[in-house]
């Protein structure tokens, strides 16, 4: 008998009483019904301005937040941010963002997945979550996962209209817009950190040292 059969057999035998077949049929239906309904648990009420809540929570998680009404301003904001911190003015971005006026802001931006040596990675976001100040990123050919992971500075350009209240709302959006979850859904909440040594939080473990969120409406 395979390990699979042995384990499943033991689990089956642990269930008490009732006719097995009847129980099995009922169970499959109950599972299908729960999956179809996918009911929500209790979630915090989030009245009011979602972008304001998002910004407040993101700052708490040590992300930096900038805002502009004009998406074409994003490169200028980023250039200023990098200059202030004496960071390199070069990086990589998701293909959908290469159309922004990077070079006129003095930035050398390339549209390709990040490599180890890249220091700035610019991404969009599928959506953002106000409850915790979190980004939801989907992996894909046009949205490589490495861009938000390998560079020391991760910059995400977010459409404020894509800020939802909770993780449950984010899943609903995913169900509406995608047939199935991509290979990786990454929820990102600020710069990577560790508290393994003396439970003291240190920013910049294996992922980015800083995360800059730029709220800028898409046209």
């Amino acid at each position: 008998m395979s390990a699979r059969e042995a384990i499943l057999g033991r689990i089956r035998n642990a269930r008490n009483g009732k006719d097995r077949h009847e129980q099995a049929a009922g169970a499959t239906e109950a599972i299908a019904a729960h999956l179809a309904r996918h009911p929500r648990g209790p979630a915090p009420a989030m009245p009011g301005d979602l972008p304001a809540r998002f910004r407040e929570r993101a700052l708490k998680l040590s992300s930096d937040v900038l805002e502009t009404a004009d998406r074409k301003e994003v490169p200028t904001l980023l250039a200023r941010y990098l200059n202030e911190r004496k960071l390199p003015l070069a990086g990589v971005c998701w293909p959908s963002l290469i159309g922004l006026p990077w070079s006129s802001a003095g930035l050398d931006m390339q549209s390709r997945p990040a490599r180890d040596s890249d220091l700035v990675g610019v991404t969009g976001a599928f959506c953002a979550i106000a409850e915790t100040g979190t980004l939801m990123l989907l992996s894909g050919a046009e949205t490589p996962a490495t861009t938000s992971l390998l560079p020391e500075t991760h910059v995400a350009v977010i459409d404020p209209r894509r800020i939802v209240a909770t993780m449950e709302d984010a899943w609903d959006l995913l169900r509406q817009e995608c047939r199935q979850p991509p290979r990786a859904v990454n929820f990102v909440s600020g710069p990577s950190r560790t508290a393994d040594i003396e439970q003291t939080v240190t920013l910049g473990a294996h992922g980015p040292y800083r995360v800059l969120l730029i709220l800028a409406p898409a046209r």
Partner: protein
Amino acid sequence: MQNNAIDFKRQVTVKLADIKLQGALSRLQSRFVEGRSAVISEIADLPETRNAAAAIRDRVLNDLEHWLLQFEQQATARGAIVHWAETDEDVNRIVAGIARQHGVRTAAKSKSMVSEECELNDALEQAGVEVMETDLGEYILQLAHEAPSHIVAPVVHKNKEEVADLFAEKHQLPRKTGIAELCREAREILRPAFLNADMGISGANFLVAETGSALIVTNEGNGRLVTTLPRVHVAITGIEKVVPTLEDVSTLVRLLPRSATGQSITNYVSVLTGTRGDADHDGPEHFHIVLLDNGRSKLLGSDMQEMLRCIRCGACMNHCPVYQNIGGHAYGWVYPGPMGSILTPLLSGLEKSPDLPNASTFCGACAAVCPVKIPLPDLLRKLREQQMERGMKSRQETFMLKAWAWLALRPNLYALATRIAVRVMRLLGGKERLLHRLPGAHGWSDGRDFPAPAGRTFRELYRQGGRK
């Protein structure tokens, strides 16, 4: 991992006298206990949310067979390969086999307590695979050849000086002293391991049956790296980790980091489904999920089933006065604290860990903070009962408990005996009203004095005071 739980009592004496350890443990209390209490109130309706979380876990455990099958079907449909392992040795054999199949020479690993159950690293080294732990805490332990002492903060027992000495010795670099510098050094040493690894190994905090996904929470980003860069990803977890839907897992994620480290959310929550797409630039080509039983299935349908709700947040140990005083190593196996005092006997045998169910004052702090409402003291008590029934208690203890039970069933005699006892103790207590030695319980009175009773029993005082 080798089970040394039998050695508990001796270890306790050693740990209580370890001044460095005592310093380290006090930090855990201030950071994690206070951290939790600061953010847990962000959850609007905590009692309802804990009820919901317990119900989510029970839904799966009450029909684990069909939820596992649902998970397997979805995961397989997306190109993952699901393996089933009866024992820790099976996990090692399966993972070594996967490594061989894909020509793997090097592996980068993020934290997995299930792999600690298996001592996977040793098995892989023997199979010719070089394994690098990448969680900072686990990496430190790998360098020091030590076992984790906490399920969330594995290296809580070490201070930064010890880490600095260790890094200086092993990395052959000038000794750093600041925590941030130490973290940076580890990052730079480990970066090539991520980039060059053929295989990434991770745990899975949850398996989502709806989508066939493995969900991993991390802070450092190493979990993302080992599941994104190497061409093979192996996720190892227990069969009980299935959760029905994405909504259900959202409820649990609301509780897990808040209970564990006092964070509203961990830096990264990754939901991984299947292998890389044709046009993708990253992600593994092969995704293997190994499901370990190792004694879990036999808890289903028993009066211990509730233990399988556990989401490994560590809150019970952070709040446990016993853990706070002795740390995790004394418990002798992978899982310490209240949850470990139950899981270790259940998974590897009560006879191998006879002291663990008794390593509790039944203060109830663990049950009060457990996000999935596991009645930990009740389960500990049931294990004590089993010990009694199976004749595993010492003759002295059995005799005393039996004598007490005999007496307690005879109220008049009980009243008389206690009346005499409190008066004798009062006399022995003298002016200081302290007893320096308790016959038959010097383990208790070696470290502290026993306050002498007031001289009259509760019942006498009650009768005298009248009912209010």
